[in-house]
């Protein structure tokens, strides 16, 4: 089952798009589609300073992937050993049902081949003991390759440190 998670540290992310470029150059993705995307949301003034949120959108590799469920040919599949969702391009017929099914826009259309392709968490790299390219190349180490539990722990730790700083006589 999928026990992978890409943790994005908003405080470290500078919205530079290096993740997108490291992804594209790893998978030689043509111009147009993108397996991951930084979506800047903002700016919005908080406490006198306009802040911005850079939302990182790879595939989330769902535990119950709708894209897999709706695929009529079995091209979209979930890897047994670790739950990674990817496309077997030899089976894809280009029906785009997965694009319709995915609420987050993860499956991408390759107009050169008329087939779908998508983020596979760089499974070939994982199999070599490496991390996904977006994580490895991230300019400021804002992306971290962790388990969901580790991500929760990181968030708790940051929150705890933040409030502790504001206690006057710590």
């Amino acid at each position, binding site marked *: 089952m999928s026990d992978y998670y890409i943790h994005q540290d908003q*405080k*470290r992310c*500078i*919205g*530079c*798009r*290096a993740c*997108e*470029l*490291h992804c*594209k*150059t*790893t998978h030689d993705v043509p*111009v*147009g589609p993108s397996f991951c995307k930084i979506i800047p949301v*903002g*700016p919005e003034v908080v406490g*006198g*300073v*306009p*802040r*911005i949120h850079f939302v990182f959108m790879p595939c989330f590799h769902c535990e119950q992937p709708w894209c897999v469920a709706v695929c009529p040919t079995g091209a979209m599949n979930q890897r047994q050993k670790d739950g990674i969702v990817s496309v077997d391009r030899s089976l894809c017929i280009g029906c785009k049902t997965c694009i319709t099914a995915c609420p987050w826009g993860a499956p991408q259309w390759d107009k050169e081949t008329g087939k779908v392709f998508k983020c596979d968490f760089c499974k070939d790299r994982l199999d070599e003991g490496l991390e996904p*390219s977006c994580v*490895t*190349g*991230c*300019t*400021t*180490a*804002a992306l971290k390759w962790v388990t969901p539990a580790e991500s929760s722990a990181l968030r708790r730790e940051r929150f705890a440190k933040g409030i502790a700083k504001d206690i006057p006589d710590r």
Partner: protein
Amino acid sequence: MADTGRATVYSICVMCTVRCPIEVEVENGQVKKIWGNPHVLGGRHLCPRGAAGKVFQNDSERLQYPMMRDGERGEGKWKRATWDEALDYIADKLKASIDKYGGESVVLGDRGGGFTDLQKAFIKALGSPNYLNHHGACSSSVHNAHNAIAGHRRNTVAYDFKNCKYTVLYGRNILESIGTKEAKDFIDALESGMKFVHIDVRWNYTAAKADRFFIIRPGTDYAFNLALINTILRDNLYDAEFVDRWVLGMKELEEFIGPYAPEWAERETGIPAKEIRAIAHEAADLKPAVVFNQGWMTAWTENDYYFRRSIYILNALMGVYEAKGGLLFSKGEAAAGYKPVKMLKPLSPKVDRKRLDGVGWKYKHLSEDYGMAQMLPYAILKEDPYPVKALICYRFDPLSSFPDPAAYLEGLKKLDLLLSIDVNYSHIGWYSDVVLPECTYLERTDPVLVKKGPKPALWLRRQAVEPKYDSKPKWWIFKQLAERLGIGEYFPYNTIEELIEWQLQDTGIKLSDFDEKGVVSLSDKQILWDRKDGLQFKTPSGKIEFLSSLLEDNGIPSFPVYESPKKPPKGQYRLVTGKIGVHTQGTSLNNPYLNEIQSENTLWINTGEAERLGVATGDTVEVSVKGVTQEVKASVTDHIHPEAVFTLHGYGREIPLQTRAYQKGMRDNTLMKGLLKPTVGGNCPITECFVKIKKKP
């Protein structure tokens, strides 16, 4: 390098001129992936432009073979030439110019940066003092200010962000004009609790992370600093021990600074006086782990030089030089106990002709390392101080980087030879007589780079794959020209390996020492000078000179009375330009992957002003100055000063061969009419540009 199978090659990027250390994965003779060099960066971190180097190397829309003009200049008619044809033609033209007008009639324009020895050696060996680079449109005022005050360049000190506790940035968009290590260090520092203040005429991604952010009235950064200095002196906030030991001119500074109280600055800048006082006190509380960042963007006004001086004055008052978390001096081979790496430039005889741009004789306080390339067209047209007949542009594109390309071209028309050597198509290349394609950084080895710093090292750019197309490395091109011009003896090598071994001869380091990590460290730990007795300020007094002998001796005041920047005439706006993380101005715009992310620029207009103009986001507006009009889409925002409009620099490329970037967005520098001129700091006053805006009917 390997032709088959997999290999790892350590090298140095040049997608921008930060030149990050990289690790190139090669497979079957092709670049498979580019990462940051983990031995230097502590991980494979690399900015988006660095990653996109792979598609640049593979792009068919880059220079492929030598081209010679087959029509009028700029007409775009070319014929392919062999290297011998092109080089013979260039050599004949250069010889004719030198024979008739002397070596000084030849000029070399360079992008500048770390790898300049070959070009400098070449032009010097021809007997010309005329080495110019792009800094007149970039950081000249910063370099020259630091030089007069402390005897250092902008980059002979490094910011110790890792240990810094308080930083003030002035339009220095450190998180969008990215150096990988610098950006990561900066974020690490924020995570460790560093506070920072960002001052700019507009919001950006750096501002988004600031503790305090102020939109300042354009051109008044200097007034803000004067009020900081005023507060620091009045409230006795400076590092007295450091100042007593190292600073000359405190008395003159005190006399000068009296009128510039925070209340005065509030009226001038729009930043509240109490905020200015707070910033002075916050910085002083954390000194010396403080950096007032010297920057180089946004405020290139006529008085930019004095603004930059004030930054260095603030740093000196906080005692940050050679302090943990402050500014650390760069050290070279000698400080680490090594004999120097040999350079080519000293091999040829000294040139005693004066420079065409007046630097060193008319403008004695300005550095010859940068020159003032903005003076070149006038020197050519007026033959003053002498005839200039040939221009060699090495990755130098003044028609993109300097203001007013039409005025620049007027001068270039009178040249007998205009040569461009580049990896990219450039505007100057388009007007050249001959264009020589250099191979990309992934396809060539360059001479050794001495990476000076608190921990000096030697870095090497190494060929990862065979050159694509009929392109050649720089060392070969200049050697070929040198042989044809009878100055081959000053280039004592036949291969790049021979050149590197010669460079390293006295150091005891071998070329193979770079194999393992791509760099050779000269010192395991930081080399720090003694703050009490060991600091090396290369001014005449050996101290930091607030009252600068270099200026005073040349009749230039150290403390002129503050002059308020011009307000835009009614109905006009000050045009300010800048950068984003995915592009290196014009040079990366045609990169397929980077173009995909940001193919056009827009014009930021303040919401209130846009309402008055009847302009909404997405509308096309006409931006005009004295007969020049550019069209661009508007972006309406609250987060820009109403006096300013902003756009990304370098768009609106006019080279049809760059199909992705061709005529996308507006070409900002065409609007900077009449700004090719010298200022006291050697910089072009790029932001003294006032434009009219009209919604396109």
